[in-house]
């Protein structure tokens, strides 16, 4: 069957999309809260001109979490003309909606309003933007921030999404390469969740992994377009370890530094502990070595055992293959260019 088919199965097992069945109740919650926020904004005279999903759902790189938690990252955009001078006023409206709907720990944080919905293992982030022309401004400030600590801060909420989805650096039909990159991001996230302690895993930020993977990505597809995710991931991880993201501090300790590729260009790991950087580079090196072992192994079962050890139980070790089940297309129809 070949190792790529096992990677595809692994990917099926871990991927989480906005349309995924397992996400359906979270999705209902998301739509319902968004509707309530829009209504509350309307009552206050703020014109909602847009709302969109941010984060890994928007880039199709989300994975099922090991503990079953789901995240919602929903941006609400209001017209700059109607926006209150104090950006925290808009966040208070959102806070009120969330509190009314049974969320616990609803908090106005500096960049967004955040809350948990324990019954659904749901965590929600609501950033608020105002928009003037093509420019976005993020509502920054905590509940009691004074004038000096609150502002409508220039922002580029869609820039990062566009950067992740950009395929202009790939040759020819870039779609296949982009899809491979996104699978690799998902593999990396699952590897992180499996290999790091929960506390450290939280600090190896998904956006950090995504940016590092994109900048380091080396696609691998054969001439017929068949992907080789194992080789692509090995090459990409190797690049991630050697591109200068990790700087040696002292006593075998490393600091990790990855700049956002779009505005505001900040260090994603700003303030990150040395322990995080050190564990991160060490485990990446180990991942690199183990992927090499898998690449050089010719027996498919043994390859899967190595990968199962790296990625956890969702990377299934197949039994001795005697039959293979047909996997049918998920599309009902496809337009083709075929004729005779």
């Amino acid at each position, binding site marked *: 069957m070949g190792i*790529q088919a096992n990677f595809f199965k692994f990917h*099926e097992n871990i991927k989480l999309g906005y349309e995924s069945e397992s996400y359906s109740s979270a999705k209902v919650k998301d739509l319902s809260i968004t509707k309530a926020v829009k209504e509350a904004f309307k009552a206050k005279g703020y014109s909602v001109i847009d709302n969109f999903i941010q984060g890994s759902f928007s880039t199709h790189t989300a994975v099922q979490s090991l503990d079953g938690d789901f995240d919602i990252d929903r941006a609400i955009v209001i017209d700059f003309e109607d926006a209150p001078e104090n950006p925290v006023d808009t966040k208070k409206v959102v806070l009120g909606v969330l509190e009314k709907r049974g969320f616990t720990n609803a908090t106005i944080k500096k960049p967004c309003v955040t809350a948990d919905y324990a019954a659904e293992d749901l965590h929600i982030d609501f950033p608020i933007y105002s928009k003037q022309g093509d420019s976005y401004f993020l509502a920054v400030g905590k509940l009691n921030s004074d004038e000096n600590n609150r502002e409508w801060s220039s922002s580029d909420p869609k820039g990062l999404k566009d950067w992740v989805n950009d395929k202009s650096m790939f040759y020819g039909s870039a779609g296949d390469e982009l899809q491979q990159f996104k699978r690799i991001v998902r593999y990396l996230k699952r590897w992180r969740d499996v290999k790091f302690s929960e506390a450290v895993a939280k600090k190896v930020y998904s956006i950090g992994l995504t940016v590092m993977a994109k900048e380091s990505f080396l696609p691998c597809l054969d001439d017929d377009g068949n992907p080789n995710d194992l080789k692509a991931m090995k090459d990409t991880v190797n690049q991630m370890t050697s591109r200068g993201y990790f700087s040696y501090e002292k006593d075998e300790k490393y600091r990790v530094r990855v700049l956002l590729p779009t505005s505001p260009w900040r260090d994603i790991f700003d303030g990150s502990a040395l322990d995080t950087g050190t564990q991160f580079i060490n485990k990446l090196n180990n991942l690199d070595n183990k992927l090499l072992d898998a690449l050089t192994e010719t027996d498919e079962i043994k390859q899967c055992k190595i990968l199962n050890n790296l990625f956890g139980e969702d990377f299934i070790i197949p039994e001795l293959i005697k039959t293979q*089940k047909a996997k049918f297309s998920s599309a009902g129809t496809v337009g083709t260019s*075929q004729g*005779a």
Partner: protein
Amino acid sequence: MINQEVVNDLVFHGYNSYLEEFDGLECVMVDICVDENNLTLFHLLPKEITKLPVFYVMPADILVNLSHLFYSPKNDIYSVCVTTQDSISLNFNCPLLVIRASLERHISLITRAIQDPVWNKQELLREFSANWSQVCDLNAREFICASENGGIEAIEVLGPQSRTKYGFSSHFMGISASSQALPDFSLLNRYIRYSKRAVAGRGLILPMETLHPAPKSTEGIEAWYLEALANISTKTKEQFTKKYALYRCTEYWIIFNACTPSGKTWFGIYFKTNKKRCLPTTKEHLKKWKLKAIRAKVFNKESVMPRSGANVSLNEKNVLLVGCGSVGGEIAQKLGSSGIGRIVLSDPDIFSIDNLYRHVLNGSDIGFSKTMALGNDLDLRFPWLLTSCFESSLLELRDKNLLKHIDLIIISIGSPTHERIFWEFIQTIPEPPAVINSWLEGLEIGGHATIDIPSSPGCLNCAYIDTKDYSRGLASNLNFIESNQDVTINYAGCGELFLPYSGLSASKTAIIAADLAIKYLSGKLNKSSKISWKGDMDEAASKGIQLTHRYYHFDKSLQILPLRHEACDVCY
């Protein structure tokens, strides 16, 4: 360049060369001596060197019975055939070099013919046909003789149709009983059964076990004939003298055939006398007959098929071709020209004006079913091809009994859905035939063909594995155009959509499909395979059409590649 320059050059290079008049013209003469035979070669300088310079040779009496020499009785000299003109490329910028090179070839050939009698005899037999033509009336058309195997057999001779200058009808034709088992509408039968040709007389096919060199002049024909009769086998001779020679007539044609080092040669003698007589078998009888050498060509499978590029061994093969559109039509032609013996055509479509430019059929076929028109066309072109026609769609052919005696199914319908449904049906047959699927893509981007050989891993499903997730895809992974884009053109609304591609695209696709078919049927291909041709992306790019990864990386156009896909759930 003048003659003196040529002489000076030859003398400089050691030849005994000089200028001398021959038949009133100044020629470059070269004297040579081969085994004490003094010969003179001479050359008449042309205005421009466009072909290998010709040297004539004399005296004629020394050169009798030498191969590659052709006698010209008018001047009592011989011309020498040193090579086929088209097989050499001349350095026309240096004519002296060309003349010297040609002279060397002439001398070398004459020397070998004189010094090596065994080789000379072989060559005389090899070039028998050319030598026989020397004693024929070159203005007369070749006699076409239809004979299954060249054995002794009577023939009915049909005369040329009056006022017909071209085609079969303009020739004398000899038809033997063994040659009449051809399809009704075959090329030959069209000119026998359906033309109003007069019977000119009778004749005989006479095989010869031993062949003697052709006579060098028309005067030698009678002697050659008597010697030939003396040397035919006892069995043949008995049949000839006791049966065929007793037939009384005023005109008669004997068409001989014999093996030479370059294959079987056919030639003939036309006999004419003033009143009905038995065929002459002695010198005395011959006094009352006039003999004329005639050129003959045999019309049978063993001769015509290999000579015109077909493979006789494919004549037993039985192919079902489903889809007789522009690709299928071309495939049918290629299969026919390969020598395949039986093609079953199936297509429910009618040939229409919309098909004209990219289809092999022509305007006179408009309104006919594509299969019938194509079948007639094939019958006319390929005499030993049997065609039969169905007006069924691919899905209507899901009949195990129908496919029982088929060696190969070729599908060129351009419908991935029906092709995959049919493939699922084929999986249910215990011993299915091999299947070729062929299709092209629009905008001149390329075309593809796969062959699923049941005994070998690799099937149509392998060509449909979606490389994005290894599921059973709905579009082929061989395609160069990404799925879900509209590449069709709409001229007149619903039902009038069509895929834009040229006849050239159809031909290229047919060629790769036919290549797979012929290689498989002739035993040269025994592994399930795929093949593609890749065109330019200009047209697709101008329309903003996205192309696949495979298009950008594909550099194996026209190469036969393994079909099996590692993720295929059938070929695992």
